[in-house]
Structure formats: structure tokens, C-alpha cells
């Protein structure tokens, strides 16, 4: 019986080893593709997370507050358009003529706590002064709150004394670009857990937050589209 040879004969593949190289390259290609997809895929974002001093309209407000907030949004836009055209502000009396919710005193107003609305103009001591119809009588109870906005540059629709269960107090704050306030030509909406919360001393975010007001973050169609379709990084 012949002894096996001690010498080892290495048999090289006939192809010259290209399969190993191809396998390595294919693995690298797969890893690169996956990494590329992960880095470049549309980013799916959740609904915006409110900061500690904010509240989301979609799931952070009760039904009544949600209804009033929904009405304040288009009202704010219409008020700003009107101001652009006329230079004045829609008074609460004018809002009645325009049938403008949530100020218009109809079944909606009644079902949503009969909120007492006041228009507080910047730099005035009398409510409604400078409003479009100027036909209102000065109300001593709002004279003080008007004083509070002196020089602050914001026009505010302040709603309080609603009596629906769980209802808030409301501020629709409209800033002027020329007045140098942070909300330039746009409306922001704030709520306070106490429906009888007094008018804030200063209508600026840090002061409002300090007095317990929370800014409402609308969960709007743009946010929903972003959530569903994602945004490109």
C-alpha cells in the first residue's frame, strides 16, 4: 500500500478566484444600497411634539376649546385681510354683522359656553377705539386691559367667562410687522385653563407662559401630509 504523499498540492480554482471577489463586491453593493436607502429615505415624522408651554389642537384640547380654536383660525385670517385692506380692525359689532364665529352670538356661541369677547387694540386706553365702526361705548372693565397693551403692538381678541364644562379662556393675538412684535402679520391662539383668567399684563410669549397661558399648535393639513408622506431630508 502506497503511503500518501506528505506534500500538499494546492489546487487553484480554474477561474482564478473571481467568485470570491464577486461575492465580496456583491456584499459591499448590498451594504452600500441599504446604507444609502437608510440615509436618503423620506423621513417619516410624527405629529409635532408640543413644548411644555404649548398644547396641540388635535388631541390636547377639549371639544369646546377645539371648536372655538377651529373658528378662530379663519376668523384671524379674515381679520388680517380686512386690516390689510382697511387699516382698521374688525370690531365685535362688525363681527356680528359679518356673522363671524366664534364672536357671532348664535347657536354655536351658545353651545360653546357663551364666551365674553373683548377687542383690545394696541396703544389704546379704550376698547374698540380705532376699530372699523368706532361706534362702541367705552367699557370701564376693559379700559384696564387696554392699558396693558400700550405700546405692545399686538391686537388681541380676548375671550373669557365661558361656562361650558372644561372650557378655557382664549387669546387671538395678531401682531403687526411694523410694531416689531414676534408674530409679524400673523395670528396666534393661546388658551388658559381658567376660563376667567384675567387679561395678561404683557402680551409676549414669556409673560404669557409665566401667567399660565399655553399656545395652541394647530395640527393642520400640512402637518398631516408631512406625517403621511414624509419629508425629504
Amino acid at each position, binding site marked *: 500500500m502506497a503511503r500518501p504523499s506528505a506534500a500538499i498540492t494546492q489546487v487553484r480554482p480554474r477561474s482564478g478566484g473571481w467568485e470570491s471577489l464577486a461575492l465580496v463586491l456583491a456584499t459591499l453593493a448590498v451594504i452600500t444600497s441599504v446604507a444609502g436607502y437608510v440615509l436618503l429615505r423620506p423621513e417619516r415624522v410624527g405629529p409635532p411634539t408640543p413644548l411644555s408651554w404649548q398644547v396641540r389642537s388635535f388631541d390636547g384640547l377639549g371639544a369646546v376649546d377645539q371648536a372655538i380654536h377651529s373658528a378662530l383660525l379663519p376668523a384671524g385670517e379674515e381679520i388680517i385681510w380686512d386690516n390689510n385692506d382697511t387699516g382698521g380692525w374688525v370690531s365685535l359689532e362688525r363681527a356680528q354683522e359679518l356673522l363671524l364665529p366664534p364672536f357671532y352670538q348664535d*347657536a354655536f356661541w351658545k353651545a360653546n359656553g357663551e364666551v365674553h369677547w373683548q377687542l383690545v387694540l394696541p396703544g389704546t386706553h379704550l376698547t374698540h377705539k380705532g376699530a372699523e365702526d368706532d361706534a362702541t361705548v367705552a367699557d370701564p372693565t376693559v379700559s384696564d386691559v387696554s392699558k396693558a397693551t400700550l405700546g405692545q403692538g399686538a391686537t388681541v381678541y380676548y375671550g373669557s367667562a365661558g361656562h361650558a364644562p372644561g372650557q378655557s379662556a382664549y387669546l387671538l393675538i395678531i401682531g403687526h410687522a411694523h410694531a416689531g412684535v414676534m408674530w409679524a402679520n400673523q395670528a396666534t391662539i393661546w388658551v388658559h385653563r381658567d376660563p376667567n383668567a384675567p387679561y395678561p399684563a404683557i402680551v409676549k410669549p414669556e409673560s404669557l407662559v409665566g401667567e399660565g397661558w399655553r399656545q395652541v399648535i394647530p395640527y393642520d393639513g400640512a402637518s398631516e401630509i408631512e406625517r403621511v408622506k414624509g419629508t425629504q431630508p
Partner: protein
Amino acid sequence: MTVATKHRALWRRCIALLVLIPAIALAAPAFASAKKLRVGITLHPYYSFVANIVGDRAEVIALIPAEANPHNYQPQPDDITRAMNIDVLVVNGIGHDEWASQIIKAAGRTENLPIIQANATVALIPIGGDQEGVKVVNPHTFVSTTAAIQQVFEIARRLGELDPDNATAYRKNALAYAGRIRALRAGFMTRFAALDLSSFRCATTHAGYDYMMQEFGLFVSAVIEPRHGVAPTARQLANTIEAIKKANVKVLFAEKNFSLDLAKPIEAATGVKVFALSHITGDTYSADEFEVAMRENLETLAQAVEYTQQ
């Protein structure tokens, strides 16, 4: 011809050119502004909204046939042709018209067709009733008056950006249209003011009416469809019937122009009275369709509330 005559002729041509070139240049923008914007829309309410905003200053083009059901629509070749010939498209964006993106893609307009998301600034609310503890966005913002007005404003604003020459007219028309919608609502508000709304409880087969209910301080206690356009399982239906009985619901709102297959067994099991509301879809597109449909909806809602007061 003398040299002097030749020079005079040359000078005359030069002067004529100097006069004509600016005239032609000035005429070009006038021609451009005379071209009407072609505004595409996906759903019936948006035809009404855009038609009232633009008046005769732009053309409104429906992307799909009027009689098509947007809930399960499959794009057709004609839709693609229409998409190739519009300047801008108004969409709901959060439901009902997902097929629009397929049409836009097929038309090769993904990169160059401006899209107006009508709901971009509308504060969305969840579907009413118990959705198994989950808050689901209700996309039916167009079955309402307040959310409809917000969309009208958004569309007018965006159209004004795309067509600045007519921006003022669009805004003015939008405000006038909003005033008409509010007047329609106010008429029914007066009727509702005399009613006790606090005890009103209702269910709906389709989650389409939360925005409209919200405007009257009304809320939906139960929705039969577990998801938009999805029929309930036997178990889900049994749970809903139980919820209806528990909440003492007296009224069920079904869908006008849709099958009553879901409503009938619930009516039989619970004794609720069935009323039909419109999803604002129809056989023709028209400027007044939204107002007509909403008037009918508000009339139906008033009748339903009055029924529960008897």
C-alpha cells in the same frame, strides 16, 4: 437711387425698428396676463370653491369625471390628458384624492405642477366616536362651513401667489363667498337656537360629518365604519350596536347616494331613525353645488335634531 436716398431709407427702417421693438416687448406681458390660469380640482367641493374664487378670471378643470366615486377611483387616460393641460391643482391632500398623485406622475407633471393643499391651514379634528382608543384624522373638512371657509381662504391666497395680477380679485371673491357660506350657516343657527342640543346623540355610518357637527356643538357618539370606507366585521358591528344603545342614540346618519346596507340592520337592531347626509358628490360640477349640498345637509341635521325633541 442716390446715396442720400439710400441713407434716408436705412434711417427710416432703423427708426421703425426702434419703435417696434419696445412695442412688441410691452405687448408680450399683456398677452401673458390675458391667458387665463387653468386650475385643476379633484373633488366636487373644490370645484365650487375655486369657481367662486376665480369667477371668470380663470378656468376650473375637474381632473376626474363628475359621477366618479373618489373613494375608490382608478385613474383613466383622459385624466392624464387633463393633468397635462392644467397650471395648478387643488387637492384635499389628507384623504379622498390620493389617486391624484398617480395621475400627476403618469402625466409627467410631478416636478412642474404646483399643488394647492386646501387643508394646509385647517385645524384637523379626530373622527368622532370610539376608534379603539386611537385618534384618527378626519379628512372630511369640506363637509362643513367654517373649515370650508378656511380652505377657500387658503386656495385664494395660493392662487393669488401664482396669479398676482388677479390676487386682489381672488381675495375679494373669497371674502364674498365666505360671507355667503356664513349667511347660510346663520340661517340654520337661528333654527338651532330654539332647540335643546345638549341631549342630542347621533351615530354615522361614515366618519364624514364631525366638522359639520362641531359647528353646532354636536358630537358623534359612534361611527359604524371602523376605518374610512371599510365595512365593519360582525364583531365590530355588534360592538357599535351596543355603543349606540348605551349612549341612547336616537339618530343614525347614513350616506346620501350610497347604499343603506349598513344602516338598515342597525336601524332594525336599535330603533334609531335613519337620515341621509350628503358627502357632496354628484353628477355635475357646478359653482353652487357646495352651497346647495350644505343647505340640504343642514336642513337634514335640523330635522334630525327636531325629531329627537319630539
